């Protein structure tokens, strides 16, 4: 809706009670999605509903415990960004004899990367029968603080919820034949909507909304990888084109025979909850890294924290290096220093995430600034000799830098990949 269309739905009183002076100005802000039509005390219910609908993102935002998923607007990350990273869940059957060990393993599975903790967010408990399901749920919630998904028929779900409603579990699932029952049990809890195909899915989501069950996750059935990707693509595409009944986050269960391959594809292409079965650190580490990468903001270069980074356990005799805080630069240079086989102190300077070349061109690598960074980092206390290797591209600054800092400035190679040769 454009500004005038929105304005036509407003009371036109110019009362200012919404916090904006005139209705026209308010309409402009609504068009930019910078305001909420609920702030208008005089708008009719019907118009409020119309305006709320037009302001929501194509893929609805849904809260799953402490996480948010959905709120997506584009087909390709470079058009804007992908906003909320998908939740990774591990499915465990309620009669699994290794249940406790698996939960403990999941709890421990965690990697740090670019200052972010990469881990599994959710445990999905699959019901075999009511009693077992209850026991397993109780056991699991006592062992972990991860988010919970309950997979079972309405009767089983009803029992299990009694023990964990405060954990706000995701309920799996509602279908066309049990809408009323599941909606009644769920109340405000998020629900997985399962249907045979996308047309049936639309009927289901509409019916659920009518029953007041508005926190919906669409299940993409995985008959085979090809069909799954087709449907993931279709939901995103059609939601963006305006099919509101498909405007929800998607959940998909991977095929145990090819979990790694499918998870990599689904992370990249439009799945908001991905359910795995294997707890394998060797496959989880690259998958979680991929998730972090794809869901990073393409408009912003990832920056890392400026400061001193120690590589290969350096001591006072080790070489000192200098570089910028563009993450790609940092990772490349770190890897190259590691490849020299020798320890080193790497001083990372804040260039607002620009690479050496860009920072030089943009004037972010001024002598004063570098000198200050060296001083404030107290690199002097970490090294015996005041010697530092600077990137070859910064050669022009070396003389002045030496004068200003009193450090011996060694001009390194123009590409850090040559550091192995250089440091021999």
């Amino acid at each position, binding site marked *: 809706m454009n500004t005038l269309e929105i304005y036509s739905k407003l009371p036109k009183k110019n009362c200012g009670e919404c916090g904006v002076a005139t209705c026209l100005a308010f309409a402009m802000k609504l068009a930019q999605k910078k305001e909420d039509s609920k702030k208008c005390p005089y708008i009719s219910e019907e118009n409020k509903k119309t305006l709320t609908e037009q302001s929501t993102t194509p893929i609805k935002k849904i809260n799953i415990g402490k996480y948010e998923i959905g709120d997506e607007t584009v087909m*390709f*990350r*470079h058009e804007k960004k992908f906003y909320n990273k998908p939740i990774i869940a591990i499915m465990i059957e309620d009669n699994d004899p290794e249940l406790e060990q698996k939960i403990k393993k999941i709890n421990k599975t965690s990697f740090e990367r670019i200052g972010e903790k990469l881990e599994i967010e959710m445990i999905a408990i699959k019901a075999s029968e009511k009693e077992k399901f209850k026991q397993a749920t109780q056991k699991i919630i006592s062992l972990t603080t991860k988010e919970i998904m309950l997979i079972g028929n309405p009767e089983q779900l009803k029992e299990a919820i009694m023990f964990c409603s405060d954990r706000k579990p995701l309920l799996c699932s509602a279908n066309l034949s049990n809408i009323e029952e599941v909606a009644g049990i769920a109340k405000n809890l998020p629900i997985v909507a399962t249907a045979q195909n996308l047309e049936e899915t639309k009927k289901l989501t509409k019916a659920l909304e009518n029953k007041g069950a508005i926190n919906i996750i669409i299940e993409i059935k995985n008959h085979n990888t090809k069909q799954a*990707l087709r449907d993931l693509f279709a939901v995103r595409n059609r939601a963006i084109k305006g099919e509101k009944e498909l405007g929800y986050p998607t959940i998909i269960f991977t095929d145990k025979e090819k979990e790694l*391959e499918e998870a990599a594809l689904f992370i990249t292409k439009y799945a908001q909850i991905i359910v795995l079965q294997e707890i394998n650190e*060797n496959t989880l*580490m690259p998958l979680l890294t991929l998730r972090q990468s*794809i869901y990073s903001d393409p408009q912003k270069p990832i920056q890392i924290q400026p400061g001193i980074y120690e590589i290969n356990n350096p001591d006072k005799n080790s070489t000192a290096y200098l570089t910028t805080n563009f993450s*790609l630069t940092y990772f490349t240079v*770190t890897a190259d220093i590691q490849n020299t086989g020798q320890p080193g102190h790497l001083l990372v300077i804040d260039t607002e995430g620009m690479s050496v070349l860009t920072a030089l061109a943009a004037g972010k690598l001024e002598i004063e600034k570098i000198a200050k960074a060296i001083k404030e980092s107290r690199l002097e206390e970490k090294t015996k000799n005041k010697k530092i290797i600077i990137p070859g591209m910064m050669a022009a600054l070396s003389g002045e830098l030496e004068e200003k800092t009193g450090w011996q400035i060694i001009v390194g190679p123009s590409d850090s990949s040559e550091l192995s040769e250089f440091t021999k």
Partner: protein
Amino acid sequence: MTEKINQIEIGNLKIGGDTSMPFFEEKFTKPAIAMEVYDPKPKTLPKELEKISSNPIKWAMYCKEKGADIISLKLKALREKTIQEEAELVKQIAEQTKLPLIITGCGDEEKDAELFTKISDMGGKFIIGNAEQEKYKKIAAIAIAYNHQLVALSNIDINIEKQLNILLTELGMKKENIIIDPLTGALGYGLEYTYSIIERTKLEALQGDKMLQMPILCDLSKIWEIRETKEGIQERNAAWETTAALSCIAAGVSIITMRDPSAMQKVKKIISELQ
């Protein structure tokens, strides 16, 4: 008329020819897998290649056995071996594997030009690489003279990617003989930059930009230079490469260059299921 990615023939293979982004309306153009063979062998290798990689010919035959579509031959030994020796090696590998070859040299423009001329004189059609913005004239001249296909390498910059294609075609290179290598950052070290460049390139190509309609090659070798793979955990290294390969497939590349045979087989299997 629908715009599409150029379709090119590499030996008996046809690559490219995509008329849409991957998975749109279930369309998917099958990428080919190239397996790396180095001379001399690199530092980080999957365990199963440790012994065999001392002999490039045996390594290439092993890759063929495992199902490689193409061999990506990386000749870095030009400081130690003679041009004649390297050219002989290429001839042997071509004859024994009967697979299409992508051949890249040591990066020294003069030496590489000599090498490619020698190889070309022995007969046969190859994909040679790399042409770069700062050094493309010598290699392009050889590609044009012998009608080889050429890999055009840029550094994760779509403007340079396009500029290089313009420079090459102005020099006389047929646009149908160019393959784009956008430089693939390792997973965890910038892969996502490459990923988005690929999607942008394909979208522009499918909207009619003739200077971006070349098929795209993802060389995953940077994965083997990072801290995570140097730790040598076999299963994790293979998973790292598989994950990276699949994200490139999702972006819509036409050739993926890999090192680990077990990862390659997993990727090939999924590709066949996506068709």
